[in-house]
């Protein structure tokens, strides 16, 4: 005799970080007979989430903000109890691991420093409203800071960066997803060889794309400094960009500097360009924006895509002229394959559905698709409408109570299934991000859904194209080659970069006019 059961457990004052809890919840959900599972801190926002999912039990209602709540809905009491036992085992094992290694478990920054007195960097990923306070303490102690947290107030950012500049320290962020210092990958970064290219980047996945493309060409990173997306705005004044540029300028290992960001406010751009020229090192500025045109001006080259940043840097390092190319493969090959794909599609299948994990990669796709195909509907620009769409699935609206798509494919798999059913959709355009912090098998997480939706389309007498680029290096634990092979075995067309994948999507959706503009007149 079985009956649907809800069971809840509250662990008072047992703070756990959101990623740990989201991954636990996913694990619990996969248990036999478990219909829904939640593991979260009982903050007001999370209580709301529980209520929406019908999991707001009296126990959860009585819990406070520092209490951890686990709620299971299962098809039997036994299944619910088993899931709760599994959660308990998870925490016991974790505690054992922490204590077993004989490690100290300090509760504050100050006491951590007593255990690691020569620490020089503090990585902060606590919830945004508390992050500035910790960053201020770290800077006051003379420590460099990587501030991964988002939702840090602009005025806090300005004050923190002013303090960092006064003390000659790095304040990377807020919302700094990626950095590489002395070869050590921080946050979401790929396994990169050490090398001669230094970075100042306002974007995590943007930095990942450029570093991976450079690694594929045999180059490595000296230092990669994240500055957060707002550093080059008027309000922040490029404080950390300028500070980082000075440091890279003085660094003997750095032979060329790449700056990645959105076009800065004009006054800031002038200041940054003047500083770049004064460094007497070749520089590439990748500015992702609608009005940006590629140009070369002495030792400073400005480009408008991430791949062009890598290509221009390679050319400059080898003393060669840089000529932008839309594709690595010969135009005839791209044209032939695009035409073959178009023949498998029904005439009404002409829309692009881009489903991204990386925010900057999504933004780059919009910038590439829009001039070729017309207006793009995207959550990156509220209120935008268009036949084609680009979704940044890592945006807040998709990740409330859910893990980021770079960690967990659930949100994206749902989007793939949804989009594939729309009859006008010609292709899905995806990014697959490898590296430290990313899921163990990002391609493998997506392939079953891709195969299922393609089979469904074929059963209806059409096909569905799937395009992707894989952001990774040969050294990444996920294995770049293996990830590409997994996708290709599922019929995915894997392009060497996000820019090329977006252009290919435009060719498939737009047909001859787009191909002519990207590939030249071509034969017939």
């Amino acid at each position, binding site marked *: 005799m079985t009956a649907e059961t809800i069971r809840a457990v509250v662990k008072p004052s047992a703070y756990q970080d959101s990623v740990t809890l989201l991954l636990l919840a996913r694990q619990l959900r996969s248990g036999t007979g478990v219909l829904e599972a939640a593991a979260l801190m009982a903050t007001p926002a999370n209580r709301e989430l529980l209520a929406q999912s019908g999991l707001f039990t009296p126990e959860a209602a009585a819990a406070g903000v520092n209490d951890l709540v686990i709620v299971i809905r299962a098809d039997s009491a036994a299944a619910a109890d088993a899931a709760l036992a599994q959660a308990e085992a998870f925490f016991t094992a974790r505690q054992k691991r922490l204590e077993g290694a004989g490690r100290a478990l300090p509760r504050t920054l100050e006491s*951590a420093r007593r255990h*690691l007195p020569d620490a020089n960097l503090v990585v902060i990923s606590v919830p945004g409203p508390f992050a500035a306070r910790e960053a201020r303490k770290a800077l006051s102690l003379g420590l460099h800071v990587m501030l991964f947290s988002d939702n840090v107030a602009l005025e806090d950012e300005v004050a923190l960066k002013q303090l960092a500049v006064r003390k000659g320290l790095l304040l990377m962020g807020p919302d700094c997803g990626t950095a590489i210092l002395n070869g050590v990958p921080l946050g979401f970064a790929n396994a990169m060889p050490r090398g001669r290219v230094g970075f100042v980047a306002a974007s995590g996945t943007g930095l990942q794309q450029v570093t991976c493309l450079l690694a594929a060409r045999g180059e490595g990173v000296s230092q990669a400094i994240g500055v957060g997306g707002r550093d080059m705005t008027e309000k922040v004044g490029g404080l950390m960009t300028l500070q980082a540029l000075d440091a890279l300028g003085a660094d003997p290992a750095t032979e060329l500097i790449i700056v990645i960001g959105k076009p800065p406010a004009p006054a800031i751009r002038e200041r940054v360009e003047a500083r770049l020229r004064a460094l007497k090192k070749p520089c590439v500025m990748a500015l992702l924006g609608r009005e940006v045109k590629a140009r070369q001006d002495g030792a400073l080259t400005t480009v408008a895509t991430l791949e062009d940043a890598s290509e221009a840097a390679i050319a400059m390092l080898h003393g060669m002229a840089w000529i932008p190319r839309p594709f690595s493969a010969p135009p005839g090959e791209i044209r032939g394959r695009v035409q073959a794909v178009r023949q498998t599609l029904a005439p009404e299948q002409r829309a692009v559905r881009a489903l991204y994990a990386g925010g900057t990669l999504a933004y780059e796709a919009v910038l590439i698709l829009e001039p070729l195909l017309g207006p793009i509907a995207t959550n990156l620009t509220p209120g935008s409408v268009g036949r084609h769409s680009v979704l940044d699935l890592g945006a807040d609206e998709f990740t409330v109570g859910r893990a980021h798509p770079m960690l967990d494919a659930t949100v994206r798999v749902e989007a793939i299934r949804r989009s594939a059913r729309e009859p006008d959709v010609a292709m899905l355009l995806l990014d697959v991000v490898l590296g430290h912090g990313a899921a163990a098998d990002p391609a493998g997480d997506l392939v079953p859904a891709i195969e299922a939706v393609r089979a469904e389309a074929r059963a209806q007498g059409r096909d569905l194209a799937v395009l992707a680029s894989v952001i990774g290096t040969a050294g990444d634990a996920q294995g770049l080659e293996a990830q590409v092979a997994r996708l290709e075995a599922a019929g995915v067309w894997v392009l060497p970069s996000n820019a090329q994948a977006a252009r290919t999507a435009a060719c498939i959706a737009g047909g001859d006019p787009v191909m002519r503009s990207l590939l030249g007149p071509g034969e017939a």
Partner: protein
Amino acid sequence: MAGIRDLFRQEVRVINLGLEAFALELERLGVPVIHVAWSPPAGGDPRKAALLAALGDEEEE
């Protein structure tokens, strides 16, 4: 700035506050790291925490 140039010449040694996964990843790479068993100050109320911080009352252990 001298501080950053010094950092470029030193081994990176990390204090990690927040996502434990970051500390575990660094540990796997052999990077010296200590994870802080952080919990929200002021009973998890950001406004109260900001007030306490402004008063210099850091209520540490």
